[in-house]
């Protein structure tokens, strides 16, 4: 048995998987990955089932060291500099750390969350069929809390399978699509128009429970209290201050603010990856369109294995590698200067 030892990691990093639905009637929220496509792509790269547990890494840097044997990994999601013992690691591709080697990840450059899948999955004890961390409920494995320096993730020893990359749909900064409801009738037509006609920014106080939005004030028709009812991932609730909050996977299962609209399921991961401070817009679509998108998204997830490609041999850019070592930062040896990321989620563009 090998393991990945966490030499350093920032806040907002935790083990996540497809989540634990089924107990919302008891107040237990499913949790699970913020960006399900990125999680599924990372797992697919190392031959795992799409929603096995992986490490969800927040915007800050991290270091993981293989101990006791080789560990095969894959990195997807928010673009960032990454290297293994000085060798650049490409996003949306698998790679192997031999015993004692360290994977070093820089800060996210655009995007918010990266996913580090481990061949064989994170090993832990599932509760309600899931390893996903929900610190409030005391759930998650191998640690029922966000990850910290010194934590150890038991891992299967690398199989030696050839490394792969995965071709994901091209990044887009198209508006985040919503359907109205369930309480859009608590707002006037003008307020709903203001909501979709305005630019919004994600506040720095956002987390896995909810993304607070900054923009024009949305006025309620009958005050901001309703009798609590059920929430979903993507519920756009509007509290008393008129600034919407998008409920994310660690939300409460019920809430007492009117919900003007709901982000469509196919766009939730793309929204989760918008970095704090970046402007974006919403666009309202019909239920029929939203459900067609949900079916397309399910098909994309189902066919991820068909998007795997062999990694061709490349001419290494020795200058770039040299620079990287001198400067103490890794760059892609294949494509020096630009980060090679074919990410769905880099809606902010290069910065």
């Amino acid at each position: 048995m090998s393991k990945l030892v966490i030499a350093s990691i920032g806040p907002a990093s935790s083990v996540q998987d497809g989540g634990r639905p089924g107990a919302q009637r008891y107040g237990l929220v499913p949790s699970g990955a913020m960006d399900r496509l990125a999680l599924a792509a990372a797992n697919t790269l190392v031959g795992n089932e799409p929603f096995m547990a992986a490490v969800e890494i927040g915007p800050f840097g991290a270091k993981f060291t293989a101990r006791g044997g080789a560990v095969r990994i894959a990195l997807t999601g928010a673009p960032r500099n990454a290297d293994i013992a000085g060798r650049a690691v490409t996003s949306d591709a698998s790679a192997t750390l031999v015993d004692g080697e360290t994977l070093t990840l820089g800060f996210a450059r655009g995007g918010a969350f990266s996913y580090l899948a481990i061949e064989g999955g994170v090993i832990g004890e599932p509760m309600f069929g899931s390893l996903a961390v929900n610190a409030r409920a005391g759930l998650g494995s191998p640690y029922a809390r966000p990850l910290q320096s010194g934590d150890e993730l038991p891992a299967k020893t690398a199989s030696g399978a050839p490394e792969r990359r995965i071709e994901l749909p091209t990044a887009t900064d198209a508006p985040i699509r919503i359907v109205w409801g369930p309480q859009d009738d608590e707002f006037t037509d003008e307020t709903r128009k203001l909501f979709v006609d305005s630019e919004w920014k994600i506040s720095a106080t956002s987390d896995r429970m909810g993304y607070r939005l900054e923009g024009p004030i949305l006025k309620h028709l009958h005050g901001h209290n309703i009798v609590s009812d059920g929430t979903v991932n993507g519920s756009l609730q509007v509290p008393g201050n008129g600034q919407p909050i998008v409920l994310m996977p660690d939300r409460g299962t019920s809430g007492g603010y009117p919900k003007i609209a709901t982000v469509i399921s196919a766009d939730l991961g793309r929204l989760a990856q918008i970095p704090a401070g970046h402007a974006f817009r919403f666009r309202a679509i019909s239920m029929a369109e939203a459900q067609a998108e949900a079916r397309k998204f399910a098909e994309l997830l189902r066919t991820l294995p068909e998007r795997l490609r062999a990694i061709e041999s490349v001419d290494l850019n020795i200058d770039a590698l040299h620079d990287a070592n001198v400067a103490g930062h890794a760059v892609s040896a294949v494509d020096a200067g630009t980060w090679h990321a074919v990410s769905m989620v880099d809606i902010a563009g290069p910065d």
Partner: protein
Amino acid sequence: MAATLPPPRLLPSGDSAITVEFSRNIDDAANRRVLALDRALAADPIAGVTETVPTYRSLLVHYDPVEIDFDKLGEKILARAQRPVPAMTKTRRWRIPVVYGGEHGIDLEDVAKTLNTTPDEIVARHVAGDYRVAMIGFTPGWSYLSGLADSLHMPRRQNPRLLTPAGTISIGGVQTGVQCLAGPSGWHLLGRTAVRTYQLHRDPIFLLEPGDNVTFTPVDAKTFAEQDRAAEAGAFIAEQIAS
């Protein structure tokens, strides 16, 4: 009978859930219809429905849009919702011990003052209630009970507390509740129970179900301390009374 029931409103909650709304208010009859529809969907499942979440006034139905679309699911739900509300075939009744007042119920004196009566009278009114678990929500095991006496209705605190203890028994508005985990609350704290409505590594992990009946019984601080130790070791503490 069935014809007299007004149809619920079907509100889209994104592309993968429908809010089936029976009322906009806290309403006992609506809650009974919510729980009846919940039971009807459990007894006669609709393909594609993944999970149901009952609340005071609505049932949230999660579904897989690959399996069934909004219109088709809505039709099937409406058909079930307009059937007469069947009697509960099985009701569970729990007696939950509570230590009232003092350090365990720091708002008891203020509640008594606000309602122009004594702390003992507040406890007597709270203990006299026959409650039903209307919904469980927000955090694991947080049980919202219906059936609070009118004489105990009062607005929530102006400033919610950021941290209230696990096991808190409180009142707010027309509701009373059993809070399982420590957390924020704007309700008035009357007491504490050793009962864990959510406890990992115990079978069952969740003690109360929506629709269960609950009564409270007062205990002294020493008994609470003993019960709390036993509960930590996995004891239920709550007593199930024959229905």
